[in-house]
């Protein structure tokens, strides 16, 4: 399984619709401080079902919606879609390509889709549970978090090993 594309609209500093296309291998994201690079990492975490807003630097789920700036009004909705190649069948779905979409509105209302079919957040979380991505794995390392692998206690390291087992 690999990542094919990521589409963000209204997510944090990405007011306009933006699409990243990924190839196998290394995709590097560069740019000045505060430009939005870590926001991309947050978007990936969020669309995969992250429910701890604190881990994506917010306090309420609506914090991920573009909040406006000196020159722009706030938006009413944030949406992120991630498309993965599933031809190896690593995700428990019949599709060879899987697109997961997550939306949140100012009201706090959320919507979730798997290949355009509405679903619940937990369907998304369960979809990725045994895929090796997301919670418990080392596949998403946030800014300043690499040291945590070492400063984590011995028991936490065993848990990492158990996830890899």
């Amino acid at each position, binding site marked *: 399984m690999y990542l094919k594309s990521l589409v963000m609209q209204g997510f944090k500093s990405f007011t306009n619709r933006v699409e990243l296309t990924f*190839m196998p291998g290394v995709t590097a994201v560069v740019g000045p401080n505060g430009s939005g690079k870590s926001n991309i990492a947050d978007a990936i975490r969020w669309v995969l079902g992250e429910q701890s807003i604190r881990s994506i630097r917010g306090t309420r789920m609506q914090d991920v919606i573009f909040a406006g700036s000196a020159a722009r009004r706030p938006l009413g909705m944030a949406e992120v879609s991630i498309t993965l190649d599933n031809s190896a069948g690593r995700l428990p779905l019949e599709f060879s390509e899987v697109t997961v979409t997550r939306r949140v509105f100012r009201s706090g209302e959320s919507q979730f889709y798997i290949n355009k079919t509405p679903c619940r957040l937990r369907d998304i979380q369960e979809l990725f549970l045994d895929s090796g991505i997301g919670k418990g794995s*080392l596949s998403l390392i946030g800014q300043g978090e690499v040291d945590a692998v070492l400063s984590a206690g011995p028991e936490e*390291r065993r848990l990492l090993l158990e996830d890899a087992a």
Partner: protein
Amino acid sequence: SSKRLRETYEKVSTAFSNIFARLFGGGQAHLTWTDTEHLLDAGLELMVQPPGKKMQSLMALSGGERALTAIALLFAIIEVRPSPFCVLDEIDAALDERNVALFAGILSDFAKQSQFIIITHRQFTMEAADVLYGVTMDRTAASELMSLHLAAIPEAAAAAEHAPA
């Protein structure tokens, strides 16, 4: 199960020692159990010896040595249980030029089997990329995304462009 955990441990521990020695240009590192009888309740300790130095606790290591050790452990786990893709946000921040170059080498090798999305400010890491995205913030505080080609981004050119008059 305890047996499976032990097998995974053997593989990760070996991979960790090998990758550590590659990144540090020598030295030794071991992952050891706090309790070799009851693995499922035990913890994992890291014993680390950079080349020419004594075996030491993680605490005495420098910032860069800690980051490099964490990177070795991360890649050891990826080697044993490859993640479909990995999102890494500035994990090379604490490394000096020489260590970033070694890290970029390991990243390139692992990228043959795994997909990496890496946020970085470091030149050698950028040079290991197959695809490069530049993120900037426009005057209205909206993030913009651009596809980049490596020739366009030598850090010296970027620095020269941004140096104050």
